[in-house]
């Protein structure tokens, strides 16, 4: 034993592995320290993102802790000074052989037909460390071949080596312990409770981390062999979290996504929606060619015809109504490069500022781009205090939910949640402040300044408020407070959230915000100027007019309209041509009636999309776009982190990248975007967009940038226009109460009628449907039995929906999930109103 005096061991722990002296970190496990120094110790149960359990014994090595060498599991032992580890000694080798022989006793000889074969730790490690042959000649254990433990995951119990990875993941990481070890000893198996499937939003991860072929996904089973797969890294674009993933493809087909472990974002996990919607890319329903609506419906046309037609439509709009007669809605699906190209086409060539990548359910861009920004890591840091008011992250930003869950449960973060309804996060919250819908600003004001005279802080519980106030005050003073902000409900305007943020910015100018955006690349689209009054690089139109005037053919005369404004103008007959840039306002915009009026009234609609969704069906001209994994470029997640997307497969038919469509349109309009490739566009972004200055292609592709680069909202480079800042407006009053109505909270479930989910057969049937939930007290007043379909009315419209009681819903509130089969909830919402009040009546809508 080396007896290094303590003064020579500042932070490190000196240990010896295979005769080499090295320094481990304090608290580091032997298995990790060895790996960091290039010595791989075989393992099955150990997973760096979960707590070690010492289940499989594969990692045993000869370790001398000072008491003589002994065989110890290196995944369970922290390095201590002077420890001597031998991973290659004959004793270690014999022990590892023995463990493998034991594990193989009941393991079927399935390798030739097993999906894991070729990427199987059991196969690989048996080859590397195994005994070579088995002495076991008895009959092996037999179990029914795969049983479905959920709609997405199959379990072959014969193959299971009982490593506890899946069950640990379910309990420790996902918090859904719906799979468990059952029975004992030789009969132990993983299983679910009868008729209670492993319906976790994160179930696919278990198939990824299972070290054998016991867990497989329904979508990948028997589809490929690992050695035929080509692997490319990219970033999930299904929601704003932006999980890093690997696209595994073969013969130009995407076959699966696997999570890639990047430290700042997803830690290797994916949610099932992101994991399984690769199916949509290959969907038969993808648009393959441009379509023109004729008297007999859509007809396929050539790109030449389509482009000419689109250019004609836009020129006609320009000459008849001027640039303001053109509106462009959507863009969150696009890469940053495509978003820039479209921004340049819209604002720099057509001269319209009626451009919005959001669909009325995201945060205002002044807020997203203008507040001091926190990263996910900053929000989730150990011991921090998180003030959260936003959508249910478990439903809308699932892997962010995992990170928050870890922060609270494992890293002692304190969560304070302010919400009108309980969410997936609520069980984790130290303080839960439930307020009336549309009064988050009142609740937050009360949280910071106490309840003002004559108000009630949005109806929050005063006792909880007092405790939460103390926690916030203390955290703000010690600098450990971060705020996570997003839209809680699409049935109310974003003004309330903005006002709540204003209160916080005024009170704590130093505090940082994580701004939640639900769609894939909304942040990138905003960064690239796809919002009214904005130009690429987080600059306001008015302040960057000269800067862009010098580089672009033109710049819009003044700020234009957002999506609600564009749709209203279209409904009022003031828009001549509407471009749907990957947008389905009929499904996604909170006010469906307005969207429907707009689509009906507007003379010309051009849609650029992957699918013929409801809104696209109303278009006159449809341009088939290439989608995720078919285009290269970059995307920006809700932190403002830019990461590289890669192209792996060819788009169907003649579908094209969005930026190529924009460039070609500009050419047909006698202009030139001057953009030749995605790289080329990034070059121009780096040059022109003030916030992105200095983030060169080389920087993006550098090995240090593997996790992406967060674009910070610092001071702009000299000579460039200043970036947008959030200016707190004057405080809002609470919305006027209406004693005869219930105030609606409308939010989303993970699986809904969204185009991508519905185009993925594995997910299409998982949308749970919707019911209106009201407090039992409010329900009693209706005087009807529970569970009936009733008529729900607002000033905007009426729907029929089942009404049930839920004591967790506040009195005076009604809660519902949108975009579910059976009820068009957005028929109730009026985009011009700041809250949605409803009444329930007995009877059904005729």
């Amino acid at each position: 034993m080396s007896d290094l005096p303590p003064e020579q061991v500042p932070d490190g722990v000196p240990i010896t592995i295979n005769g080499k002296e090295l320094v481990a970190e304090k608290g580091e496990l032997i298995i990790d320290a060895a790996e960091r120094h290039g010595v791989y110790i075989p393992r099955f149960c150990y997973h760096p993102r979960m707590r070690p359990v010492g289940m499989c014994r594969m990692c045993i090595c000869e370790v001398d802790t000072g008491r003589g060498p002994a065989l110890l599991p290196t995944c369970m032992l922290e390095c201590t000074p002077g420890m001597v580890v031998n991973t290659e000694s004959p004793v270690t080798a014999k022990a590892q052989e023995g463990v493998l022989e034991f594990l193989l006793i009941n393991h079927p000889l399935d390798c030739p037909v097993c999906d894991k074969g070729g990427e199987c730790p059991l196969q690989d490690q048996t080859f590397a460390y195994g005994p070579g042959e088995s002495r076991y000649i008895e009959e092996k254990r037999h179990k029914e071949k795969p049983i479905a433990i959920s709609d997405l995951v199959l379990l072959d119990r014969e193959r299971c080596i009982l490593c506890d990875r899946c069950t640990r993941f379910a309990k420790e990481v996902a918090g859904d312990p719906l799979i468990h070890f059952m029975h004992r000893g030789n009969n132990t198996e993983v299983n679910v409770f009868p008729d209670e499937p492993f319906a976790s939003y994160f179930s696919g991860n278990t198939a990824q981390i299972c070290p054998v072929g016991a867990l497989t996904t329904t979508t990948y089973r028997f589809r490929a062999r690992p050695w035929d797969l080509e692997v490319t890294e990219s970033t999930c674009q299904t929601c704003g979290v932006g999980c890093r993933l690997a696209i595994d493809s073969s013969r130009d087909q995407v076959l699966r996504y696997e999570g890639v472990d990047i430290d700042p974002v997803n830690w290797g996990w994916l949610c099932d929606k992101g994991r399984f919607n690769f199916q949509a890319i290959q969907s038969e329903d993808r648009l393959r060619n441009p379509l023109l609506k004729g008297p007999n419906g859509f007809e396929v046309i050539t790109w030449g015809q389509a482009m000419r037609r689109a250019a004609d439509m836009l020129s006609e709009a320009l000459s008849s109504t001027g640039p303001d007669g053109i509106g462009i809605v959507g863009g969150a699906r696009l890469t940053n490069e495509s978003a820039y190209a479209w921004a340049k086409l819209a604002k720099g060539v057509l001269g319209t500022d009626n451009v919005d990548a959001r669909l009325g359910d995201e945060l205002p861009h002044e807020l997203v781009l203008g507040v001091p920004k926190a990263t996910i890591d900053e929000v989730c840091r150990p011991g921090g205090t998180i003030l959260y008011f936003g959508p249910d992250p478990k439903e809308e930003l699932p892997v962010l939910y995992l990170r928050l869950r870890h922060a609270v449960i494992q890293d002692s973060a304190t969560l304070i949640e302010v919400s009108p309804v309980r969410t997936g996060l609520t069980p984790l919250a130290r303080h839960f402040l439930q307020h009336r819908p549309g009064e988050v600003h009142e609740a937050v004001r009360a949280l910071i300044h106490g309840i003002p005279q004559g108000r009630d802080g949005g109806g929050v519980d005063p006792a909880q408020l007092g405790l939460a106030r103390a926690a916030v005050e203390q955290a703000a003073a010690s600098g450990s407070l971060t705020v996570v902000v997003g839209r809680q409900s699409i049935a109310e305007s974003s003004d309330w959230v903005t006002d709540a943020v204003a209160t916080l910015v005024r009170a704590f100018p130093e505090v940082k915000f994580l701004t939640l955006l639900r769609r894939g690349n909304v942040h990138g689209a905003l960064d690239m100027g796809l919002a009214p009054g904005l130009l690429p690089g987080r600059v306001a139109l008015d302040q960057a007019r000269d800067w862009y005037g010098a580089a672009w053919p033109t710049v819009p005369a003044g700020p234009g309209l957002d999506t609600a404004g564009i749709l209203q103008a279209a409904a009022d007959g003031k828009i001549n041509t509407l471009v749907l840039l990957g947008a389905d306002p009929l499904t996604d915009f909170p006010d469906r009636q307005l969207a429907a009026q707009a689509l009906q009234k507007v003379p010309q609609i051009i849609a650029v999309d992957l699918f013929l969704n409801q809104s696209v069906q109303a278009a006159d001209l449809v341009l088939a776009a290439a989608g995720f994994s078919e285009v290269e470029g970059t995307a920006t997640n809700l932190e403002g982190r830019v990461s590289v997307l890669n192209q792996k497969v060819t788009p169907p038919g003649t579908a094209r990248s969005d930026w190529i469509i924009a460039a070609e349109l500009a050419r047909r309009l006698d202009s030139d975007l001057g953009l030749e490739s995605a790289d080329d566009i990034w070059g121009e972004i780096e040059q022109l967009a003030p916030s992105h200055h200095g983030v060169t292609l080389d920087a993006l592709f550098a090995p240090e940038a593997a996790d992406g680069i967060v674009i910070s909202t610092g001071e702009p480079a000299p000579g460039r226009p200043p970036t947008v800042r959030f200016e707190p407006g004057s405080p809002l009053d609470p919305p006027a109460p209406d004693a005869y109505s219930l105030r609606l909270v409308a939010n989303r479930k993970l699986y809904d009628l969204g185009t991508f989910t519905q185009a993925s057969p594995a997910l299409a049937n998982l949308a749970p449907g919707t019911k209106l939930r009201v407090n039992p007290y409010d329900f009693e007043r209706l005087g009807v039995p529970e569970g009936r379909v009733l008529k729900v009315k607002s000033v905007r419209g009426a729907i029929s929906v089942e009404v049930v009681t839920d004591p967790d819903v506040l009195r005076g509130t009604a809660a519902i999930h949108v975009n579910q089969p059976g009820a068009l909830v957005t028929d109730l919402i009026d985009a011009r109103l700041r809250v949605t009040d409803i009444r329930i009546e007995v009877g059904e809508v005729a």
Partner: protein
Amino acid sequence: MSRLSTENVEVAREIIARYPRPKSALIPLLHLAQEQDGYVTSEAMAHIAELVGCTPAEVLGTCSFYEMFKLHPVGRYLVNICTNISCMLCGGEELLEHAEKRLGIKAGNTTEDGLFTLEEVECIAACTEAPSLQVNYRYFHKVTHDDFDRLVDDLRAGRLDDEIPPHGTLARVRQSIPSDRRAGIAPPEQVTSEPVWLRNFESPSRAQGAAE
């Protein structure tokens, strides 16, 4: 096929209140369920999951680990005959064979009238009295074939009802702990300090901090 009865829910709540965390009451509650139905039904397990705040899979995981919890119906009398070393040497195997003939079933099965379930078991810690058997975990020592026949007759005739309650009843006197001596759990709405799971999942760094 049943959840816990209203009375048993009362008992369950009392049992839960004895522990600092509801989940700790899992095994006593499984006994309660087995006492109610003679075996542990799926419905009861789902009900217990609700009562202690975990998933039914976790309840089944625990329940199926233990041999004494039966997941399928068993007879009113569960007869366990030991064939481990001492009993084997003293005629345990022959006793089992005799029992199979007498009851007309193989070990592991239940008589058609639903009265007897016969099981072959490992040592039941009555080696000095071999061969031994248990009926609903009540011991019978140095059992001869005649003893066995008499035992069956007595059980059939209900002559042992006082000594041997139906399968599932562990003790007929219910344990009760005065309320002032219970660990007690504050109802969640009163918990304003650190939530329970924080302690459950204490991070290594925190644990060390506490030790230092």
